[in-house]
């Protein structure tokens, strides 16, 4: 329908007499007119003779014509030519003959024109209807193909949408969890920090005071004790031994620094916890990779068995821009995944390097590895190979989403020697060290 403009065939195209009339229709009439008494009969248009009888050869010159009758031939109301009968002497019937010839020819013109128009419009309508049918057929075929494709892809799309939904839900879940952990950590850290502060301060003061008591005791023993009677001196020695003052003095010297060291360690743990939860960090703040890893390991200290060996080579990596808490979460889940894969004798190597515009962080363990067919699934939300109740299958999803949040990705492959190797590819965006 759109290519209407291209239709060249127009109904009612202008035609000349020659197109509408044919020799087969004209010549018998002219011959009959001559037979009926005319000496020459002709049809002319635009000053040109189209048909005549008898044919020009052997016919008398025009100046010998003494009688002539002509009548117009009309095509659609327009005079387009004439039929002319001539005689070499006056003939009564010439006028009537001409009228008959003109009537017959005009009638033929009308009939022929009507036939032509009918043919034209019929052809036009058939062509156009055919074109429209073709167009409709094309559209139908296209729509059928669309529906078939839709039907075929429906299942795939449903799966994709489901995965998307699950991912979104997992993301929400994780955010909630992160927010809760962050709040809890912030609250606890604040509450512990306060008493810890005065405990540390008091311990230091106490250490100083105890030193003075010990000095005083020694002063008594060496300077005053000599002036006492032998009985009293013996009583003092007795009491000294009984109270094991020598031991207590030595032990105090060891106990108090130990307490102070312990309290300092608690203080470090709180700092790690704050750092891990990134309570103070902004969403798009610079994140130091090695620091994030150390904090994560510190927080996970209780989970990591004594026989596990975690080697790390993250020196000279640039800072990343992003949410540090997310990165710590990713590290924690990768380390936890390795610990679960190899509860005893874990050897985890964590290394990092530049790769073009990216930083590749490798976590290579000596666990059983991940079967090839499962590798594409491990990052899906709620996918887990563990027993019911042993894990919800969100750990590696968190890793995947964290990498995505940094604008990167995570891949899993087989480590040399059979374990699993997870590689976090994170783009360097304006990192401090370039």
């Amino acid at each position, binding site marked *: 329908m759109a290519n209407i403009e291209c239709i060249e065939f127009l109904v009612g195209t202008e035609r000349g007499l020659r197109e509408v009339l044919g020799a087969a229709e004209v010549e018998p009439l002219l011959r009959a007119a001559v037979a009926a008494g005319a000496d020459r009969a002709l049809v002319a248009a635009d000053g040109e003779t189209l048909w005549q009888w008898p044919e020009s050869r052997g016919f008398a010159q025009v100046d010998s014509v003494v009688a002539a009758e002509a009548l117009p031939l009309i095509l659609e*109301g327009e005079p387009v030519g004439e039929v002319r009968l001539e005689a070499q002497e006056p003939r009564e019937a010439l006028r009537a003959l001409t009228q008959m010839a003109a009537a017959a020819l005009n009638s033929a013109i009308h009939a022929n024109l009507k036939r032509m128009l*009918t043919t034209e419009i019929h052809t036009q309508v058939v062509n156009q209807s055919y074109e429209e049918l073709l167009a409709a057929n094309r559209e139908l075929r296209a729509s059928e193909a669309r529906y078939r494709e839709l039907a075929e892809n429906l299942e795939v799309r449903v799966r994709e949408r489901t995965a998307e939904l699950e991912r979104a839900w997992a993301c929400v879940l994780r955010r909630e969890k992160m927010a809760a952990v962050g709040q809890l950590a912030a609250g606890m850290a604040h509450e512990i920090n306060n008493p810890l502060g005065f405990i540390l301060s008091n311990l230091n003061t106490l250490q100083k005071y105890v030193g003075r008591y010990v000095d005083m005791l020694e002063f008594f023993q060496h300077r005053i004790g000599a002036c006492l009677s032998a009985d009293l001196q013996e009583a003092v020695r007795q009491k000294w031994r009984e109270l094991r003052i020598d031991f207590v003095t030595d032990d105090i010297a060891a106990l108090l620094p130990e307490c102070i060291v312990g309290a300092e360690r608690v203080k470090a743990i709180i700092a790690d916890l704050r750092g891990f939860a990134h309570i103070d960090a902004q969403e798009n703040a610079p994140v130091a990779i090695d620091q994030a890893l150390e904090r994560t390991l510190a927080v996970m200290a209780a989970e990591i068995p004594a026989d596990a060996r975690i080697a790390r080579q993250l020196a000279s990596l640039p800072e990343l821009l992003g949410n540090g808490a997310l990165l710590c979460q990713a590290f924690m889940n990768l380390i936890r995944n390795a610990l679960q894969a190899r509860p005893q004798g874990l050897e985890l190597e964590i290394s990092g390097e530049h790769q073009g515009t990216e930083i590749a962080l490798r976590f290579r363990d000596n666990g059983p590895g991940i079967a090839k067919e499962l590798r594409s699934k491990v990052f899906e939300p709620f996918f887990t190979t563990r027993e019911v109740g042993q894990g919800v299958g969100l750990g590696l999803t968190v890793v995947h989403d964290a990498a995505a949040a940094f604008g990167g990705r995570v891949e899993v492959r087989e480590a040399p020697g059979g374990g699993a190797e997870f590689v976090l590819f994170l783009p360097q965006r304006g990192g401090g060290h370039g």
Partner: protein
Amino acid sequence: MIEFNRADNKMVLKLVYYGPALSGKTTNLLQLHELLRREGRGDLMVLDTRDDRTIYFDLLPFFLTAPSGLRIKIKVYTVPGQVRHDATRKAVLQRADGVAFIADSQLSETGNNVASFENLERNLALVGLDIATIPLVIQFNKRDLPGVVSEADIERVWRPTGIPIHLAAALNGEGVLETFSALADRTYTQLDEKWGLAAEHGLAREDFLRQLVVPG
């Protein structure tokens, strides 16, 4: 326009009578054939009918000459009104110079009038003509029948469009010449603007109408 041949000094125009089935388009042409003088008016050509219903179209040609010698042929067509003949309507509407829309005044036909007018709008667009600029007149036919839509209603609905309205009873010849005359008049305006009928060919509006619409 079907053709403007400068070499032959000839112009061929097309006027189309459009409208719903049985609204009286052929009757209009029959009356024009009847009412107008013979000279310069061709014979009415009725292309195939079945039960008096037009299948293809009717054609009434006119011929006139401008003082400059420019020969002007005006072909007045009807289209078949029945819905199924849409392809024919499109073919006939192609390159029209003016359109007379023949509406059926009977109240029962209001819906058909609207559908046919919408069909006209759509088909004009399809053949590359603009309904806003093509010379167009509307005839409300069959005023002689009972149960027709009132003049006040016609006025109210159609006046805002600015399209001239003519009331007619084509069967009695009433309003037929007026409609044709108005269509010729509007068509002249556009032709004159485009081809300078008056300035270049000495054919003034009155001459054009006088030559074309001469009661016989």
